[in-house]
């Protein structure tokens, strides 16, 4: 069978529409859920990393770098198969998936937050402290309002990538969009149509989001 001779036929997919929809829901739920959890982790980690106390920062640096410098797929597999052996407790797939995706994206968010705060010029601290603001007040009223603006574009990019990252949880049988695709493939033996459809669905969700992100970025740049 040559490529040109292949008879494409997407019509059978209609019968699997509810399965596909369920998969998409799971994908979106993991994306939103782990973005929220990751943001909490990233916010705490990023702000604590600004501390001058190495007892606080050293473990956080270790966490961030371990998660940034190992492949997400390896992390998922490791948390699902290896961690239960280490701690002697079984970890259900959905827990391992949520945990890893949140910690992974949280490490990137932490760096975005730390970088945003550090990008504000020293003079802003000087000026705010010179009129008698305390550390927390400088952060809240002077540094963060400016830093958040700089954090928004990288935050949006990281979050868009996160939707694609969730597809890796299919490897530990979490029933996301990609996993449902493999189920349909197993039932129909038509992987070309199935994975084409899966790719198109990811694209349909992500493309408008990237356009929106670009527009926000442009508007922020104009406001400067």
């Amino acid at each position, binding site marked *: 069978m040559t490529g040109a001779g292949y008879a494409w036929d997407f019509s059978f997919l209609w019968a699997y529409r509810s399965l596909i929809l369920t998969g998409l829901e799971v994908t979106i739920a993991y994306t939103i859920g782990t973005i929220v959890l990751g943001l909490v982790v990233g916010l705490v980690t990023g702000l604590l990393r600004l501390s001058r106390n190495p007892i606080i920062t050293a473990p956080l640096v270790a966490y961030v770098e371990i998660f940034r410098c190992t492949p997400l797929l390896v992390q998922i597999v490791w948390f699902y198969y290896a961690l239960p052996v280490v701690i002697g407790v079984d970890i259900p797939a959905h827990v391992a998936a949520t945990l890893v995706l949140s910690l992974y994206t949280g490490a990137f968010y932490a760096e975005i937050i730390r970088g945003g705060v550090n990008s504000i010029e020293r003079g802003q601290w000087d000026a705010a402290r010179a009129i008698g603001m305390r*550390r927390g007040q400088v952060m809240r*009223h002077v540094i963060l309002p400016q830093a958040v603006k700089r954090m928004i574009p990288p935050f949006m990019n990281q979050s868009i990538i996160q939707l694609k990252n969730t597809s890796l949880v299919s490897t530990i049988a979490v029933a996301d969009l990609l996993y449902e695709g493999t189920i349909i493939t197993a039932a129909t033996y038509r992987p070309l149509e199935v994975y084409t459809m899966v790719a198109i669905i990811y694209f349909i969700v992500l493309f408008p989001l990237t356009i929106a992100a670009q527009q926000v970025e442009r508007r922020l740049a104009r406001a400067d």
Partner: protein
Amino acid sequence: MIEIADLWKAFGPHQVLKGVSLRVERGSVVAIIGPSGSGKSTLLRCINLLEDPDRGCIRVGDREMHFGGSNRARPGDRELAAFRAATGMVFQHFNLFPHMTALHNVMAGPSIVRRLPRREAEDIARGLLAKVGLADKAAAYPSHLSGGQRQRVAIARALAMNPSVMLCDEVTSALDPELVGEVLGVIEQLAEEGMTMVIVTHEVAFAHEVADLVAFMSDGVIVESGPPSQLLEHPENPRTRSFLARFHRFVGSFSGTQ
């Protein structure tokens, strides 16, 4: 008003202040001149504790802080903030808050630090913007102001805390020449009103005009100080002389081309 005794400060291996002592009387203006890298700005930043001195003693009004020597803990955040609130500082690069209007920049101290009601803070801020000649720029963001206007807003912001002392760190060095006058005018007005000020400046002529005392700093120490007419016209120390000679020659050649 201000008393600094034997102040030492190093950044890593680099000893920037080597035992500086200085007295500033209430209502007087002290100008600090000297070559770059001589420690002038560091001295100024130590006075309101933006830098943490290694050793020595600083008194501003009735607040006094000792550093080094004893095993006394470093002052805490709250103590530092209160100390700084009583001194106003104006910076070379203005350091206005870019996300706030001119009005909100000036209101920042009264409303955030002194926690005054909004109305009251706004009245103070509008009054001070009028004082520096920028009543009509209250709603403007810093990015829409000229350098001279920004620096005047920064002066108003410092004054809004009703400080007993103003510290001015090369406030005209980042300005285009034609904008220097409007800022020096405001400083001069403050001096006339009896504000105690310490001014680090390269404007020797201005120092001559406005200061009651001029201190020449070089290599981390105050080499010589005295009334402007004495220090600037008849310096005794050779280092002061050579610094001023360079300056006079520059002025001479500059006016010669007019």
